[in-house]
């Protein structure tokens, strides 16, 4: 029998921590980088580093549950003949059929429709299930153009030109062969079972001047009916947002580095892009600098989890937010009832992020028909709706406490920052001071 070793005195290296050692061992064994789903896991400044100042002597609050606090937002008022109005300032972000099961896409549509908001297609095109169960559907126009066709384009309630996403700005995608079912292969016009590469840049334009013409082409094809969004991953956000406005966007979507992905290299997710917090402030600065704040609507995404996150994004100047990962969790991703199967996959509920490999026990990030059948789209849709309602109520709660009759009336002056980093990034004063690091009174 071996002696039990006392490990309590052992000092773990900050440089070569246990996870780092494990990753080096894995890389040496497999010879390839780690690919996974979800967004950045590293500790970064977030909306959690801001606090609201409730009403006090100088402001009075609204009565909870009794006094009206409006949540509806209209998107696409700049050029589109038919802007869309969502009942809550929370939309469902683009996630592809292929990455997600048909059941999951249907559930997202059901949930969004139940609360009067929009959902979004993804790489791979529009499925009848998603269109049929989504009252408001945003059709993504992506570099791969998988499944892209003018009939579906004209069925959309809005079009989102995807330049980049927060998890991998500057990167394309890879749907691994094990997730390529007959149906996915047919929609994407590629052989079954091969890794499907999604390009990192569009095939027929190369810069903002070209994009302006491309946006006009999309408007021409859809007879100027629907709003056109431009989505960028958060990097050089100030300039990207200004160029998106120049290119003719009705709505700009900025996705911070916490934004999820179905399959991307871990090194990309963790080391490229900027957090949602500074990206929000930079995007609002860019719109105000052009005199286009509120003329062009701003949607913020990347790590939105709670009504507090929603309220803080709105207070910084966003018009709405998008959720992706949180919606998957609401549907049942990482649910404890699948614990045994998570264990069989070498993980545990709460840590499962191998959304790329198609073996998701919850039936969400899979194309396996048996696994997909596990997800009841009606029940999962109901969970999404419940979650969206909860976020909306939380947002209203904070807005009422700040004395606002409309959630979009929240403003930066309603908040303080808890940390120097968050203060500098959000340009919100450090709590208890009037100090904003690096701020000289103008941007």
């Amino acid at each position, binding site marked *: 029998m071996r002696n039990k070793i006392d490990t309590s005195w052992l000092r773990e290296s900050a440089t070569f921590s246990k996870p780092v050692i494990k990753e080096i061992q894995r890389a040496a064994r497999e010879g390839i980088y780690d690919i996974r789903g979800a967004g950045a896991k590293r500790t970064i400044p977030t909306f959690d580093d801001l606090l609201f100042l409730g009403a006090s002597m100088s402001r009075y609050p609204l009565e909870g549950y009794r006094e009206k606090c409006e949540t509806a937002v209209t998107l696409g008022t700049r050029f589109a003949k038919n802007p869309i109005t969502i009942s809550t300032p929370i939309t469902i972000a683009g996630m592809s059929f292929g990455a997600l099961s048909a059941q999951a896409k249907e559930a997202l549509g059901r949930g969004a429709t139940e609360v009067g908001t929009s959902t979004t297609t993804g790489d791979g095109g529009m499925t009848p299930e998603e269109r049929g169960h989504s009252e408001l559907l945003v059709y993504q126009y992506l570099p791969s*153009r998988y499944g*892209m066709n003018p009939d579906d384009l004209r069925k959309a309630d809005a079009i989102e030109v995807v330049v980049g996403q927060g998890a991998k700005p500057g990167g394309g995608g890879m749907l691994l062969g094990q997730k390529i079912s007959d149906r996915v292969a047919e929609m994407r016009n590629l052989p079954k079972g091969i890794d499907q590469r999604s390009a990192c840049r569009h095939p027929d*334009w190369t810069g903002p001047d070209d994009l302006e013409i*491309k946006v006009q082409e999309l408007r*021409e094809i859809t007879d100027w009916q629907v709003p056109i969004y431009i989505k960028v991953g958060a990097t050089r956000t100030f300039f990207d947002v200004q160029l998106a406005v120049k290119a003719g966007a009705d709505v700009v979507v900025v996705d911070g580095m916490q934004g999820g992905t179905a399959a991307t290299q871990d090194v990309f997710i963790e080391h490229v892009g900027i957090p949602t917090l500074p990206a929000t402030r930079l995007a609002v600065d860019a719109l105000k600098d052009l005199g286009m704040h509120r003329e062009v609507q701003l949607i913020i995404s990347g790590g939105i989890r709670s009504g507090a996150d929603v309220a803080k994004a709105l207070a910084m100047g966003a018009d709405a937010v998008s959720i992706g990962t949180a919606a998957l969790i609401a549907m049942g991703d990482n649910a404890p009832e699948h614990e045994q199967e998570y264990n069989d996959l070498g993980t545990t509920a709460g840590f499962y992020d191998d959304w790329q490999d198609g073996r998701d026990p919850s039936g969400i990030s899979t194309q396996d028909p048996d696994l997909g059948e596990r997800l009841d789209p009606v029940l999962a849709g109901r969970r999404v709706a419940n979650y969206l309602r909860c976020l909306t109520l939380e947002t209203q709660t904070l807005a009422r406490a700040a004395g606002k009759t409309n959630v979009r009336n929240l403003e930066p002056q309603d908040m303080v920052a808890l940390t120097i980093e968050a203060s500098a990034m959000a340009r919100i004063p450090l709590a208890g001071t009037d100090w904003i690091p690096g701020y000289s009174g103008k941007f």
Partner: protein
Amino acid sequence: MREFDLQDAEVRMLNQALHGSDSEGQAIAVVNPGGKHNVAAGAQFETQVDIHGHVGYYCAGMNQNARITVHGNAGPGLAENMMSGSVAVKGNASQYCGATAHGGLLVVEGDAAARCGISMKGVDIVVGGSIGHMSAFMAQSGRLVICGDAGESLGDSIYEARIYLRGEAASLGTDCIEKPMETEHIKELKELLNKAGIKHEPAEFKRYGSARKLYNFQVDNVGAY
């Protein structure tokens, strides 16, 4: 014959007309296009469109069913994402012509610039002259016929599309190889040339396609990525 003079009329008026079902079976002439962008974008019905002059970006983009002829040169993105019908250019075409197109026939009687047929998804493209670099990059399906020469990296990362080249390629892209011309390919090429109205002997062409070595990511191929 209905005529749109783009010196006076907006492109919007032309495209609106092409989106209406009453354009079915009509013949439309477009004069003085003046290099304007998005001319005849999103046509939906079996309409004959003759454009007399040069056009800018995305002419005939996402075309469905219409038969569109440009009696001049075309700017970037000609017939991008075309679904069906046909587009013909009497002169030259700029870069990305036929990008991501799913169906139909695209004929460029002159030369086509870089990235011709990039990510094509089922379209047939026949180029009477030569094409630029990185053409048929990530081409998924369909057929690209080049009667002249091809620039560097022809067919890089090609999937199941077929390339027929009469002249020489400056270089082949990753995973693109020459393949034997069998009887079926001679027959297929002859039909394509006939449809395009371009006369060449199919036996003068070589066929290129995917080696299919990069279809699934393998670390042993890291030098190819």
